[in-house]
């Protein structure tokens, strides 16, 4: 697993069916001290992580399909946990939530006749994932 920080979301309506209804999180990769390690990854959310949160990224296909209960899905990277702290050396690094205003920047590809509904930022999934975690009430525990 790797440590990452959720820095945004990717919204898509035309995709492989396995991605329907899933939240795609744009995550910067971090080193154990919580500093950017260079690079990023797009991961499917499984724990309800929000923008700014430090997360645990699992990068293995069989595990991803198991966590998401999605047999056969072309998915390899999943957010499987929210990191509270990394204790490395004398000082414990507590990785809280980075608070910063969210700037929504639409990068629309080739023009399409109709704007897809999910591209609008007021859909529940987009709103939840782009609201800084500190501004949200406690999440309900996911049940399976």
């Amino acid at each position: 697993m790797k440590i990452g920080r959720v820095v945004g979301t990717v919204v898509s309506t035309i995709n492989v069916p396995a991605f329907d209804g899933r939240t795609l999180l744009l995550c910067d990769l971090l080193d154990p001290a919580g500093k950017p390690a260079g690079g990023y990854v797009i991961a499917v959310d499984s724990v309800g992580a929000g923008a700014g949160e430090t997360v645990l990224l699992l990068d293995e296909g069989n595990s991803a399909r198991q966590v998401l209960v999605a047999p056969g899905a072309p998915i390899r990277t999943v957010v499987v946990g929210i990191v509270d702290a990394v204790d490395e050396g004398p000082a414990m690094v507590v990785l809280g939530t980075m608070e910063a205003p969210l700037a929504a920047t639409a990068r629309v590809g080739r023009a399409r006749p109709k704007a897809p509904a999910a591209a609008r930022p007021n859909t529940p999934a987009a709103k939840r994932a782009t609201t800084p975690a500190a501004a949200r009430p406690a999440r309900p525990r996911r049940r399976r």
Partner: protein
Amino acid sequence: MLLGRVTGTLVASRKEPLMEGWPLLVVRQLDAENHEAGGYVVAADTVGAGVGEVVLYATGSSARQTETTRDRPCDAVIMAIVDTWEIGGREVYRK
């Protein structure tokens, strides 16, 4: 399999339920000369390794092949604590 040194622990109280029950350790990769190779990974610990110990870890789908992690979500697992290794008759590391 890769050699690494356990340098820390990671706490994630909210996580995928199938991953509950094993410690998550920060492992810094080592090269064959016992120098840090630059990379790190957060690995599930199945052998009771402690901070500072040199370990063997496996990544990718192989990480799901230990008794503890079988058929559970895992992409990196510590499966041995290294006592010693040598290269060309020269002992590089001894615990």
